[in-house]
């Protein structure tokens, strides 16, 4: 998994690519979020449009990140969830936890 970081209207967008599957991915995602929170960025959009697949360990990474951001009073939302990943959210009932958007502007505006 790779992470690219950019900002739009003050909201941080993390673009993930590759496979989200635990191992070293956990630490790199966690560190990225902690640095952002430390710098005062509490609202984060995670774009997973370029994630080819995710396993249950990868789900754990998203959940842990979500909790970390929440604890700091921020919010983490998802962008571009593929049908394949959406079906995994459904069977794990995580679609009730993660707010997700298919349009970047909508996602950014949702923080307003």
């Amino acid at each position, binding site marked *: 998994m790779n992470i690219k970081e950019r900002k739009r209207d003050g909201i941080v967008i993390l673009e993930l690519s590759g496979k989200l*599957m635990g*191992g070293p991915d956990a630490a790199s995602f966690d560190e990225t979020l902690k640095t952002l929170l430390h710098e005062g960025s509490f609202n984060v959009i995670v774009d997973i449009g370029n994630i080819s697949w995710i*396993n249950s360990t990868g789900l754990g990474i998203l*959940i842990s990140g979500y*909790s970390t951001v929440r604890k700091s009073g921020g919010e983490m939302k998802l962008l571009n969830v593929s*049908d*394949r990943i959406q*079906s995994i959210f459904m*069977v*794990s009932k995580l679609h009730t936890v993660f707010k997700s958007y298919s349009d970047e502007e909508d996602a950014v505006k949702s923080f307003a």
Partner: protein
Amino acid sequence: MKSTKSDIILKVPSKLLYLGVPDAVMMEMAGDLPFPVSDMEMLSTAVIEACTNSMEHGNGMNEDNFVEMHFSFLEDLVRVTVLDNGPGFDHESWVPPDDLMAQRGRGVKIMREFTDELIYDFADDGRFRLTLIKKMKPE
């Protein structure tokens, strides 16, 4: 279900890096078989879970221990068996954590939901073997 020889046999070391390989094989075959891609994706997601577990819980992430997979593409179903060198486990008695926010413990649930049949036994050579079967409606 016809009993046939496996079509494709794949062996990879127990290293997360290689988890993408069975998925690449399944998705390559999905492009040529007359089955819905979403069904192949679900089965592949279940296979990734089985492999992750075989690497981690079965082979203890020891790279010298391989995970072996057999793929059978039949007329109306796809069957994948996953073998590891560990003690095995009874997935039927596994109760996933209740907590929606639990970080682990979702693999077996995903395998159950995304397959039609999930069978565990031991191969003749003693290796633990999980068989994942998904019925396919030719398109």
